[in-house]
């Protein structure tokens, strides 16, 4: 399942609730997850807030195609992707990827694959507010590139 949300979410509660309604009890031996969280520093600067923009429609389609690719490439039982958009603050969870499979190799590899594809291709854009003064003056900065995760 892929969800884009403007509402802050608790990643552990979200996984827990999702897992409870899954239909593969007893089948999954492995669950690999990744949670990306907003830090209060980036490139040496203090960051007070962030605006996360996306391309409604294309973003969902792209994430669903990433998940479909992963499910085809590995033997997965279920996959959950949640991504926050809108206004975020330090310590807010940004993204959650959880992958369930029978054996650990598949969920480990699929979870990392989904995150890397999401970071490099899913249409999201981050704009950072570096200080409250700058924020009020509208002097924010777009993050220009994601670093590689491999």
């Amino acid at each position: 399942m892929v969800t884009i949300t403007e509402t802050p979410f608790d990643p552990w509660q979200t996984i827990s609730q999702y897992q409870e309604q899954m239909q593969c009890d007893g089948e999954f031996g492995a669950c690999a997850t990744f949670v990306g969280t907003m830090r209060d520093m980036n490139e040496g600067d203090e960051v007070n807030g962030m605006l996360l923009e996306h391309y409604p429609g294309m973003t969902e389609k792209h994430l669903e195609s990433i998940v479909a690719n992963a499910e085809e490439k590995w033997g997965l039982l279920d996959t959950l992707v949640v991504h926050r958009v809108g206004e975020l603050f330090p310590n807010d969870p940004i993204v959650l990827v959880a992958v369930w499979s029978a054996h650990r190799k598949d969920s480990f590899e699929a979870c990392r694959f989904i995150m890397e594809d999401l970071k490099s291709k899913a249409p999201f854009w981050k704009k950072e507010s570096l200080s409250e003064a700058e924020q009020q003056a509208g002097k924010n900065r777009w993050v220009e590139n994601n670093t590689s995760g491999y």
Partner: protein
Amino acid sequence: MQTIMTQSKVETVMTIKVLYFASLRELFGREEQALDCADIETVADVWKEVSAGYEVSQSVLNSVNQEYAELDTPVKAGDEVAFFPPVTGG
């Protein structure tokens, strides 16, 4: 993708919907526009029409109908074309 339309509505479809995101939205000062599709054959033609002389660079990505596309990807009436910088989600 095709629907039956009355004659009066055909006119509205003879445009291309162009979207801008993030820094490109701010650069162009708009998030969306409708472009007359006359003389438009590719994404590059769309860019030339809307960019007011800005050079297209490696840091301008594009999509056609919500799929990643290239500058030489064909564009036709009714398509949705978007321009945006490298993505930074996750």
